[in-house]
Protein backbone atom coordinates (compact mmCIF):
# COMPACT_ATOMS: atom_id res chain seq x y z
CA UNK A 1 0.00 0.00 0.00
CA UNK A 2 1.08 3.51 -0.82
CA UNK A 3 1.63 5.66 2.32
CA UNK A 4 3.29 8.93 1.21
CA UNK A 5 5.98 10.19 3.57
CA UNK A 6 4.85 13.85 3.54
CA UNK A 7 1.35 13.29 4.98
CA UNK A 8 -0.25 12.80 8.40
CA UNK A 9 -2.80 10.05 8.98
CA UNK A 10 -5.86 9.44 11.14
CA UNK A 11 -6.54 6.01 12.61
CA UNK A 12 -9.86 6.13 10.71
CA UNK A 13 -7.89 6.15 7.39
CA UNK A 14 -8.00 9.82 6.34
CA UNK A 15 -4.86 11.65 5.29
CA UNK A 16 -4.01 15.31 5.96
CA UNK A 17 -1.68 17.47 3.85
CA UNK A 18 -0.81 20.65 5.75
CA UNK A 19 0.26 23.83 3.94
CA UNK A 20 0.55 26.77 6.29
CA UNK A 21 -2.78 27.13 8.10
CA UNK A 22 -4.83 25.05 5.65
CA UNK A 23 -4.92 21.32 5.09
CA UNK A 24 -6.26 19.03 2.36
CA UNK A 25 -8.05 15.81 3.36
CA UNK A 26 -8.74 12.54 1.56
CA UNK A 27 -8.85 8.85 2.27
CA UNK A 28 -5.80 6.61 2.13
CA UNK A 29 -4.84 4.12 -0.55
CA UNK A 30 -5.55 1.38 2.00
CA UNK A 31 -9.05 2.78 2.63
CA UNK A 32 -9.94 3.07 -1.05
CA UNK A 33 -8.68 -0.47 -1.58
CA UNK A 34 -10.89 -1.71 1.26
CA UNK A 35 -13.95 0.16 -0.06
CA UNK A 36 -13.36 -0.46 -3.81
CA UNK A 37 -15.83 0.80 -6.43
CA UNK A 38 -16.47 4.30 -5.03
CA UNK A 39 -19.69 5.45 -6.72
CA UNK A 40 -20.59 8.62 -4.83
CA UNK A 41 -18.95 11.12 -2.47
CA UNK A 42 -21.01 13.41 -0.28
CA UNK A 43 -18.85 16.42 0.51
CA UNK A 44 -19.37 18.83 3.44
CA UNK A 45 -20.89 22.27 2.86
CA UNK A 46 -18.48 25.14 2.28
CA UNK A 47 -18.05 27.22 5.40
CA UNK A 48 -19.09 24.41 7.73
CA UNK A 49 -17.14 24.44 10.99
CA UNK A 50 -15.99 20.99 12.02
CA UNK A 51 -14.23 19.48 15.00
CA UNK A 52 -11.52 16.84 14.80
CA UNK A 53 -13.13 13.39 14.78
CA UNK A 54 -16.49 14.65 13.49
CA UNK A 55 -18.15 12.78 10.62
CA UNK A 56 -18.29 15.31 7.79
CA UNK A 57 -18.35 13.43 4.46
CA UNK A 58 -19.64 10.10 3.15
CA UNK A 59 -17.95 7.82 0.65
CA UNK A 60 -20.35 5.35 -0.96
CA UNK A 61 -19.13 2.15 -2.59
CA UNK A 62 -21.43 -0.24 -4.44
CA UNK A 63 -21.84 -2.20 -1.22
CA UNK A 64 -22.02 0.37 1.55
CA UNK A 65 -21.81 3.96 2.82
CA UNK A 66 -18.78 4.94 4.95
CA UNK A 67 -18.40 8.08 7.06
CA UNK A 68 -15.30 10.20 6.63
CA UNK A 69 -14.09 11.95 9.78
CA UNK A 70 -12.35 15.30 10.01
CA UNK A 71 -8.72 14.65 11.02
CA UNK A 72 -8.47 18.22 12.38
CA UNK A 73 -10.74 21.09 13.45
CA UNK A 74 -11.50 24.13 11.35
CA UNK A 75 -13.67 25.52 8.59
CA UNK A 76 -14.33 23.92 5.19
CA UNK A 77 -12.78 26.26 2.61
CA UNK A 78 -12.90 24.06 -0.51
CA UNK A 79 -14.41 20.83 -1.72
CA UNK A 80 -13.39 18.67 -4.66
CA UNK A 81 -16.21 19.35 -7.11
CA UNK A 82 -14.73 16.91 -9.65
CA UNK A 83 -15.90 14.04 -7.45
CA UNK A 84 -19.52 14.77 -8.37
CA UNK A 85 -18.84 13.59 -11.93
CA UNK A 86 -15.91 11.28 -11.19
CA UNK A 87 -16.20 9.67 -7.76
CA UNK A 88 -13.82 6.94 -8.95
CA UNK A 89 -10.94 9.46 -8.58
CA UNK A 90 -10.95 8.39 -4.91
CA UNK A 91 -9.93 4.91 -6.12
CA UNK A 92 -7.57 5.86 -8.91
CA UNK A 93 -5.71 8.78 -7.28
CA UNK A 94 -6.52 8.85 -3.53
CA UNK A 95 -3.68 11.27 -2.64
CA UNK A 96 -4.04 13.53 -5.67
CA UNK A 97 -7.16 14.19 -7.75
CA UNK A 98 -9.21 12.13 -5.30
CA UNK A 99 -8.85 14.65 -2.43
CA UNK A 100 -12.19 15.39 -0.73
CA UNK A 101 -12.09 18.72 1.11
CA UNK A 102 -9.84 21.48 2.44
CA UNK A 103 -9.92 22.90 5.96
CA UNK A 104 -8.66 26.18 7.34
CA UNK A 105 -7.19 24.84 10.57
CA UNK A 106 -8.44 26.43 13.80
CA UNK A 107 -6.04 24.42 15.95
CA UNK A 108 -2.94 23.64 13.85
CA UNK A 109 -1.32 21.87 16.81
CA UNK A 110 -3.84 19.02 16.39
CA UNK A 111 -1.96 17.79 13.32
CA UNK A 112 0.93 16.74 15.55
CA UNK A 113 -1.37 14.23 17.25
CA UNK A 114 -2.06 12.38 14.00
CA UNK A 115 -0.10 9.31 12.94
CA UNK A 116 3.21 9.61 11.11
CA UNK A 117 3.51 7.48 7.92
CA UNK A 118 5.46 4.68 9.65
CA UNK A 119 2.92 4.46 12.48
CA UNK A 120 0.01 4.33 10.00
CA UNK A 121 1.83 1.68 7.95
CA UNK A 122 2.15 -0.39 11.14
CA UNK A 123 -1.56 0.06 11.84
CA UNK A 124 -2.71 -1.23 8.44
CA UNK A 125 -0.27 -4.11 8.33
CA UNK A 126 -1.24 -5.21 11.87
Amino acid sequence: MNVPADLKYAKSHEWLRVKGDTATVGITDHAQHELTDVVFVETPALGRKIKAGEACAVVESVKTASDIYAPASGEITAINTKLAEKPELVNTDPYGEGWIFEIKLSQPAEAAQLLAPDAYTRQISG
Partner: protein
Amino acid sequence: MKRTPLFPAHQKLGARLIEFGGWEMPVFYTSITEEHLATRRAGGLFDISHMGEFLVSGPAAAEFLNFVLTNDIGKLRPGLGQYTLLCRETGGVVDDLYAYQLADAEFLLIVNASRLEDDFAWLQKQWRGWTRRAEVKLENLSEKYGAVAVQGPKVAQFIDQVAPATGLKKNEVAPATFHGETGYVSRTGYTGEDGFEIVAPASVIEGIWHALLEAGRPHGLKPAGLGARDTLRTEVCYPLYGQELDENTTPLEAGLGFFVALDKPNFIGKDALLAQKAAGPTRKLAAFKMQGRCAPPRPGYPIWTSGSSGPIGVVTSGTQSPSLNLGIGLGYVAQNFSVPNTAIEIEIRGQRAPALVAPRPLYKSSPAKT
Protein backbone atom coordinates in the same frame (compact mmCIF):
# COMPACT_ATOMS: atom_id res chain seq x y z
CA MET B 1 -18.61 -19.24 11.08
CA LYS B 2 -19.20 -22.04 8.62
CA ARG B 3 -17.06 -22.40 5.53
CA THR B 4 -17.93 -23.98 2.20
CA PRO B 5 -15.75 -26.63 0.50
CA LEU B 6 -14.55 -23.81 -1.78
CA PHE B 7 -13.12 -21.72 1.07
CA PRO B 8 -9.49 -22.65 0.22
CA ALA B 9 -10.14 -21.69 -3.43
CA HIS B 10 -11.47 -18.27 -2.34
CA GLN B 11 -8.41 -17.69 -0.14
CA LYS B 12 -6.06 -18.57 -3.00
CA LEU B 13 -7.87 -16.04 -5.19
CA GLY B 14 -7.43 -13.37 -2.51
CA ALA B 15 -11.17 -12.92 -1.95
CA ARG B 16 -12.49 -10.32 0.48
CA LEU B 17 -14.60 -12.32 2.95
CA ILE B 18 -17.76 -11.39 4.85
CA GLU B 19 -20.29 -13.09 7.09
CA PHE B 20 -23.53 -14.06 5.32
CA GLY B 21 -26.22 -16.17 6.99
CA GLY B 22 -23.65 -17.70 9.36
CA TRP B 23 -21.18 -18.43 6.55
CA GLU B 24 -17.81 -16.91 5.75
CA MET B 25 -18.25 -16.07 2.05
CA PRO B 26 -16.43 -14.05 -0.61
CA VAL B 27 -18.04 -10.61 -1.14
CA PHE B 28 -15.70 -9.93 -4.07
CA TYR B 29 -12.38 -11.05 -5.53
CA THR B 30 -11.32 -7.90 -7.42
CA SER B 31 -14.32 -5.53 -7.38
CA ILE B 32 -18.11 -5.84 -7.30
CA THR B 33 -18.48 -3.69 -10.43
CA GLU B 34 -15.92 -5.72 -12.40
CA GLU B 35 -17.50 -9.04 -11.43
CA HIS B 36 -20.99 -7.73 -12.10
CA LEU B 37 -20.08 -6.49 -15.59
CA ALA B 38 -18.13 -9.69 -16.37
CA THR B 39 -21.31 -11.66 -15.60
CA ARG B 40 -23.44 -9.40 -17.82
CA ARG B 41 -20.94 -9.47 -20.71
CA ALA B 42 -19.38 -12.95 -20.50
CA GLY B 43 -19.67 -15.03 -17.35
CA GLY B 44 -19.42 -15.10 -13.56
CA LEU B 45 -18.71 -18.10 -11.37
CA PHE B 46 -20.33 -18.06 -7.92
CA ASP B 47 -19.93 -20.30 -4.89
CA ILE B 48 -23.46 -21.07 -3.67
CA SER B 49 -22.48 -24.02 -1.46
CA HIS B 50 -23.96 -22.23 1.54
CA MET B 51 -27.44 -22.87 0.17
CA GLY B 52 -29.37 -25.84 1.56
CA GLU B 53 -30.42 -29.02 -0.22
CA PHE B 54 -33.37 -31.12 0.94
CA LEU B 55 -34.40 -34.38 -0.69
CA VAL B 56 -38.11 -35.20 -0.48
CA SER B 57 -38.98 -38.69 -1.72
CA GLY B 58 -41.61 -41.38 -1.56
CA PRO B 59 -44.99 -42.14 -3.18
CA ALA B 60 -46.69 -39.18 -1.45
CA ALA B 61 -43.81 -36.70 -1.92
CA ALA B 62 -45.56 -34.72 -4.68
CA GLU B 63 -48.79 -34.49 -2.69
CA PHE B 64 -46.94 -33.39 0.46
CA LEU B 65 -44.99 -30.72 -1.41
CA ASN B 66 -48.14 -29.46 -3.09
CA PHE B 67 -49.59 -28.95 0.40
CA VAL B 68 -46.60 -27.07 1.86
CA LEU B 69 -45.46 -25.07 -1.21
CA THR B 70 -47.41 -22.33 -3.02
CA ASN B 71 -46.64 -23.17 -6.66
CA ASP B 72 -48.37 -26.07 -8.43
CA ILE B 73 -46.03 -29.07 -8.18
CA GLY B 74 -48.28 -30.76 -10.76
CA LYS B 75 -46.70 -28.54 -13.41
CA LEU B 76 -43.41 -30.36 -12.89
CA ARG B 77 -42.23 -33.57 -14.51
CA PRO B 78 -38.98 -35.44 -13.92
CA GLY B 79 -36.22 -33.13 -15.16
CA LEU B 80 -38.02 -29.83 -14.50
CA GLY B 81 -37.80 -27.30 -11.68
CA GLN B 82 -39.86 -24.32 -10.49
CA TYR B 83 -39.53 -21.28 -8.26
CA THR B 84 -41.88 -21.61 -5.31
CA LEU B 85 -42.51 -20.41 -1.76
CA LEU B 86 -42.97 -21.96 1.64
CA CYS B 87 -45.62 -20.03 3.60
CA ARG B 88 -47.16 -20.03 7.04
CA GLU B 89 -50.95 -20.23 7.50
CA THR B 90 -50.89 -16.41 7.62
CA GLY B 91 -49.42 -16.30 4.12
CA GLY B 92 -46.13 -14.99 5.57
CA VAL B 93 -43.10 -16.37 3.77
CA VAL B 94 -40.93 -18.97 5.56
CA ASP B 95 -38.60 -19.11 2.56
CA ASP B 96 -38.44 -18.85 -1.21
CA LEU B 97 -36.82 -21.78 -2.99
CA TYR B 98 -36.43 -23.90 -6.08
CA ALA B 99 -38.10 -27.32 -6.29
CA TYR B 100 -36.71 -29.76 -8.85
CA GLN B 101 -38.41 -33.00 -9.77
CA LEU B 102 -35.61 -35.56 -10.15
CA ALA B 103 -37.79 -38.66 -10.62
CA ASP B 104 -41.47 -39.61 -10.26
CA ALA B 105 -41.19 -39.77 -6.48
CA GLU B 106 -38.08 -37.67 -5.82
CA PHE B 107 -37.73 -33.90 -5.41
CA LEU B 108 -34.72 -31.71 -4.63
CA LEU B 109 -35.36 -28.42 -2.81
CA ILE B 110 -32.71 -25.68 -2.87
CA VAL B 111 -33.27 -23.28 0.04
CA ASN B 112 -31.62 -20.14 1.42
CA ALA B 113 -28.61 -20.60 3.71
CA SER B 114 -30.02 -18.25 6.34
CA ARG B 115 -33.34 -20.15 6.43
CA LEU B 116 -32.11 -23.73 6.25
CA GLU B 117 -32.77 -24.75 9.87
CA ASP B 118 -36.12 -22.93 10.08
CA ASP B 119 -37.25 -24.45 6.79
CA PHE B 120 -36.35 -27.98 7.77
CA ALA B 121 -38.00 -27.63 11.19
CA TRP B 122 -41.15 -26.24 9.53
CA LEU B 123 -41.25 -29.07 6.96
CA GLN B 124 -40.73 -31.68 9.69
CA LYS B 125 -43.56 -30.16 11.71
CA GLN B 126 -45.90 -30.34 8.73
CA TRP B 127 -44.72 -33.87 7.95
CA ARG B 128 -45.52 -35.03 11.50
CA GLY B 129 -49.10 -33.86 11.08
CA TRP B 130 -49.46 -35.28 7.58
CA THR B 131 -51.70 -38.34 7.20
CA ARG B 132 -49.54 -40.07 4.59
CA ARG B 133 -46.25 -39.31 6.35
CA ALA B 134 -45.16 -42.98 6.12
CA GLU B 135 -44.98 -42.45 2.36
CA VAL B 136 -42.79 -39.36 2.47
CA LYS B 137 -39.13 -39.16 3.44
CA LEU B 138 -37.51 -35.80 4.25
CA GLU B 139 -33.72 -35.57 4.19
CA ASN B 140 -31.48 -32.59 4.83
CA LEU B 141 -28.47 -33.17 2.56
CA SER B 142 -27.03 -29.66 2.96
CA GLU B 143 -23.81 -30.90 4.58
CA LYS B 144 -23.26 -33.44 1.83
CA TYR B 145 -23.54 -31.07 -1.13
CA GLY B 146 -21.68 -28.06 -2.43
CA ALA B 147 -22.97 -25.93 -5.31
CA VAL B 148 -21.82 -23.38 -7.87
CA ALA B 149 -23.65 -21.06 -10.23
CA VAL B 150 -22.10 -20.17 -13.58
CA GLN B 151 -23.97 -17.31 -15.19
CA GLY B 152 -23.66 -15.12 -18.25
CA PRO B 153 -24.24 -14.90 -22.00
CA LYS B 154 -21.04 -16.80 -22.92
CA VAL B 155 -21.45 -19.70 -20.46
CA ALA B 156 -23.28 -21.96 -22.92
CA GLN B 157 -20.13 -21.85 -25.09
CA PHE B 158 -18.01 -23.78 -22.57
CA ILE B 159 -20.22 -25.44 -19.91
CA ASP B 160 -20.39 -28.73 -21.81
CA GLN B 161 -16.64 -29.20 -21.26
CA VAL B 162 -17.45 -29.64 -17.56
CA ALA B 163 -20.99 -31.07 -17.56
CA PRO B 164 -23.36 -31.87 -20.44
CA ALA B 165 -25.79 -29.00 -19.93
CA THR B 166 -26.61 -27.08 -23.11
CA GLY B 167 -29.27 -29.66 -23.98
CA LEU B 168 -31.26 -28.29 -21.03
CA LYS B 169 -33.94 -25.65 -21.46
CA LYS B 170 -34.66 -22.97 -18.84
CA ASN B 171 -35.60 -24.56 -15.49
CA GLU B 172 -34.65 -28.06 -16.61
CA VAL B 173 -32.41 -30.27 -14.47
CA ALA B 174 -30.40 -33.40 -15.20
CA PRO B 175 -28.10 -35.69 -13.24
CA ALA B 176 -24.40 -35.50 -14.08
CA THR B 177 -21.37 -37.49 -12.96
CA PHE B 178 -18.28 -35.76 -11.58
CA HIS B 179 -15.30 -38.00 -10.76
CA GLY B 180 -17.67 -40.89 -10.18
CA GLU B 181 -20.01 -38.86 -7.93
CA THR B 182 -23.58 -37.98 -8.91
CA GLY B 183 -24.63 -34.35 -8.96
CA TYR B 184 -27.23 -32.25 -10.76
CA VAL B 185 -27.04 -29.50 -13.37
CA SER B 186 -29.91 -27.09 -13.95
CA ARG B 187 -30.43 -24.16 -16.30
CA THR B 188 -31.35 -21.67 -13.60
CA GLY B 189 -29.83 -18.75 -11.74
CA TYR B 190 -30.22 -15.54 -9.80
CA THR B 191 -28.70 -13.00 -12.17
CA GLY B 192 -31.20 -12.60 -15.02
CA GLU B 193 -28.65 -14.06 -17.46
CA ASP B 194 -28.63 -17.42 -19.16
CA GLY B 195 -26.75 -19.76 -16.86
CA PHE B 196 -26.49 -22.97 -14.93
CA GLU B 197 -26.29 -24.19 -11.38
CA ILE B 198 -24.43 -27.35 -10.39
CA VAL B 199 -25.11 -29.21 -7.14
CA ALA B 200 -22.60 -31.95 -6.37
CA PRO B 201 -21.09 -33.79 -3.40
CA ALA B 202 -18.73 -31.54 -1.42
CA SER B 203 -15.73 -33.76 -2.26
CA VAL B 204 -15.89 -32.94 -5.98
CA ILE B 205 -17.07 -29.30 -5.92
CA GLU B 206 -13.56 -27.80 -5.90
CA GLY B 207 -12.69 -29.86 -9.00
CA ILE B 208 -15.82 -28.53 -10.72
CA TRP B 209 -14.97 -24.95 -9.71
CA HIS B 210 -11.46 -25.17 -11.20
CA ALA B 211 -12.65 -26.96 -14.34
CA LEU B 212 -15.24 -24.21 -14.95
CA LEU B 213 -12.71 -21.42 -14.34
CA GLU B 214 -10.30 -23.03 -16.78
CA ALA B 215 -12.91 -23.74 -19.47
CA GLY B 216 -14.41 -20.27 -19.10
CA ARG B 217 -11.25 -18.16 -18.87
CA PRO B 218 -10.82 -17.82 -22.68
CA HIS B 219 -14.45 -16.59 -22.80
CA GLY B 220 -13.98 -13.96 -20.09
CA LEU B 221 -15.40 -15.90 -17.10
CA LYS B 222 -14.48 -14.45 -13.72
CA PRO B 223 -15.05 -15.68 -10.18
CA ALA B 224 -17.74 -13.45 -8.67
CA GLY B 225 -18.70 -12.85 -5.05
CA LEU B 226 -21.88 -12.19 -3.12
CA GLY B 227 -21.55 -8.45 -3.81
CA ALA B 228 -22.08 -8.94 -7.54
CA ARG B 229 -24.69 -11.63 -6.87
CA ASP B 230 -26.65 -9.00 -4.93
CA THR B 231 -26.33 -6.17 -7.49
CA LEU B 232 -27.17 -8.56 -10.36
CA ARG B 233 -30.33 -9.83 -8.67
CA THR B 234 -31.37 -6.31 -7.62
CA GLU B 235 -31.20 -5.11 -11.26
CA VAL B 236 -33.57 -7.89 -12.32
CA CYS B 237 -35.70 -7.44 -9.15
CA TYR B 238 -35.37 -10.94 -7.74
CA PRO B 239 -36.27 -10.90 -4.04
CA LEU B 240 -33.74 -11.70 -1.32
CA TYR B 241 -35.07 -13.40 1.80
CA GLY B 242 -34.60 -11.14 4.81
CA GLN B 243 -34.93 -8.01 2.65
CA GLU B 244 -37.96 -8.33 0.34
CA LEU B 245 -39.34 -11.45 2.05
CA ASP B 246 -39.97 -12.46 5.64
CA GLU B 247 -42.64 -14.11 7.77
CA ASN B 248 -44.64 -10.86 7.92
CA THR B 249 -44.69 -10.46 4.14
CA THR B 250 -46.83 -12.41 1.69
CA PRO B 251 -45.90 -13.46 -1.87
CA LEU B 252 -48.76 -11.25 -3.16
CA GLU B 253 -47.28 -8.15 -1.52
CA ALA B 254 -43.91 -9.11 -3.01
CA GLY B 255 -45.40 -9.31 -6.50
CA LEU B 256 -44.87 -13.09 -6.65
CA GLY B 257 -48.51 -14.04 -7.28
CA PHE B 258 -47.43 -15.91 -10.41
CA PHE B 259 -45.81 -18.51 -8.14
CA VAL B 260 -48.89 -18.96 -5.94
CA ALA B 261 -51.37 -21.45 -7.42
CA LEU B 262 -54.52 -20.22 -5.70
CA ASP B 263 -56.54 -22.61 -7.90
CA LYS B 264 -54.95 -25.79 -6.55
CA PRO B 265 -56.44 -27.85 -3.67
CA ASN B 266 -55.70 -26.79 -0.14
CA PHE B 267 -52.18 -25.64 0.70
CA ILE B 268 -50.72 -23.90 3.72
CA GLY B 269 -51.52 -20.19 3.56
CA LYS B 270 -54.19 -20.54 0.86
CA ASP B 271 -57.07 -19.07 2.89
CA ALA B 272 -55.06 -16.05 4.00
CA LEU B 273 -53.71 -15.45 0.48
CA LEU B 274 -57.17 -15.79 -1.10
CA ALA B 275 -58.54 -13.25 1.37
CA GLN B 276 -55.64 -10.88 0.70
CA LYS B 277 -56.10 -11.23 -3.04
CA ALA B 278 -59.84 -10.44 -2.72
CA ALA B 279 -59.23 -7.36 -0.55
CA GLY B 280 -56.09 -6.27 -2.42
CA PRO B 281 -52.76 -5.99 -0.57
CA THR B 282 -52.39 -2.66 1.23
CA ARG B 283 -48.69 -2.47 0.37
CA LYS B 284 -46.73 -3.71 -2.61
CA LEU B 285 -43.14 -4.11 -3.63
CA ALA B 286 -42.06 -1.43 -6.09
CA ALA B 287 -38.88 -1.14 -8.10
CA PHE B 288 -37.49 2.36 -8.54
CA LYS B 289 -34.75 4.33 -10.26
CA MET B 290 -33.17 7.44 -8.77
CA GLN B 291 -33.54 10.54 -10.96
CA GLY B 292 -30.24 12.31 -11.46
CA ARG B 293 -26.99 11.98 -9.60
CA CYS B 294 -27.28 11.20 -5.90
CA ALA B 295 -26.08 8.79 -3.27
CA PRO B 296 -27.30 5.22 -3.83
CA PRO B 297 -30.44 4.14 -1.95
CA ARG B 298 -29.89 1.61 0.87
CA PRO B 299 -32.12 -0.81 2.79
CA GLY B 300 -34.05 0.95 5.57
CA TYR B 301 -34.22 4.39 3.91
CA PRO B 302 -37.74 5.89 4.18
CA ILE B 303 -39.78 6.42 1.00
CA TRP B 304 -41.92 9.58 0.68
CA THR B 305 -43.91 11.43 -1.94
CA SER B 306 -43.76 15.17 -2.30
CA GLY B 307 -47.14 15.68 -0.66
CA SER B 308 -46.99 13.08 2.11
CA SER B 309 -46.83 14.08 5.76
CA GLY B 310 -44.92 10.91 6.60
CA PRO B 311 -43.13 8.05 4.87
CA ILE B 312 -45.27 5.93 2.53
CA GLY B 313 -42.84 3.03 2.56
CA VAL B 314 -39.32 1.75 3.11
CA VAL B 315 -36.44 0.62 0.91
CA THR B 316 -35.62 -3.11 1.18
CA SER B 317 -32.74 -3.30 -1.33
CA GLY B 318 -30.74 -0.55 -2.96
CA THR B 319 -27.46 -0.01 -4.70
CA GLN B 320 -25.69 1.79 -7.49
CA SER B 321 -26.54 -0.28 -10.58
CA PRO B 322 -23.29 -1.17 -12.35
CA SER B 323 -25.17 -1.88 -15.62
CA LEU B 324 -27.32 1.28 -15.63
CA ASN B 325 -24.87 3.48 -13.68
CA LEU B 326 -27.61 4.96 -11.49
CA GLY B 327 -29.14 4.36 -8.09
CA ILE B 328 -31.79 1.62 -8.10
CA GLY B 329 -33.80 -0.14 -5.46
CA LEU B 330 -36.77 -2.12 -4.29
CA GLY B 331 -39.10 -1.16 -1.50
CA TYR B 332 -42.55 -1.62 -0.04
CA VAL B 333 -44.96 1.26 -0.59
CA ALA B 334 -48.65 1.84 -0.01
CA GLN B 335 -50.42 0.03 -2.84
CA ASN B 336 -51.45 3.12 -4.85
CA PHE B 337 -47.81 4.27 -5.14
CA SER B 338 -46.54 0.99 -6.63
CA VAL B 339 -47.60 1.79 -10.20
CA PRO B 340 -44.75 2.47 -12.68
CA ASN B 341 -44.00 6.16 -13.33
CA THR B 342 -45.21 7.22 -9.89
CA ALA B 343 -42.90 9.94 -8.55
CA ILE B 344 -41.50 9.07 -5.13
CA GLU B 345 -38.70 10.38 -2.93
CA ILE B 346 -36.02 8.43 -1.09
CA GLU B 347 -34.79 9.91 2.17
CA ILE B 348 -30.99 9.68 2.21
CA ARG B 349 -29.39 10.95 5.44
CA GLY B 350 -32.22 13.39 6.06
CA GLN B 351 -32.44 14.73 2.49
CA ARG B 352 -35.10 13.58 0.04
CA ALA B 353 -33.96 12.63 -3.47
CA PRO B 354 -36.38 12.13 -6.38
CA ALA B 355 -37.01 8.63 -7.76
CA LEU B 356 -39.45 7.07 -10.17
CA VAL B 357 -41.27 3.76 -9.75
CA ALA B 358 -40.22 1.64 -12.74
CA PRO B 359 -41.43 -1.57 -14.38
CA ARG B 360 -39.72 -4.77 -13.32
CA PRO B 361 -37.08 -5.85 -14.21
CA LEU B 362 -35.05 -2.66 -13.96
CA TYR B 363 -32.47 -4.21 -16.27
CA LYS B 364 -33.29 -6.61 -19.06
CA SER B 365 -30.58 -8.94 -20.32
CA SER B 366 -30.48 -10.22 -23.87
CA PRO B 367 -32.80 -13.24 -24.12
CA ALA B 368 -31.33 -16.65 -23.32
CA LYS B 369 -30.79 -18.99 -26.24
CA THR B 370 -32.49 -22.22 -25.27
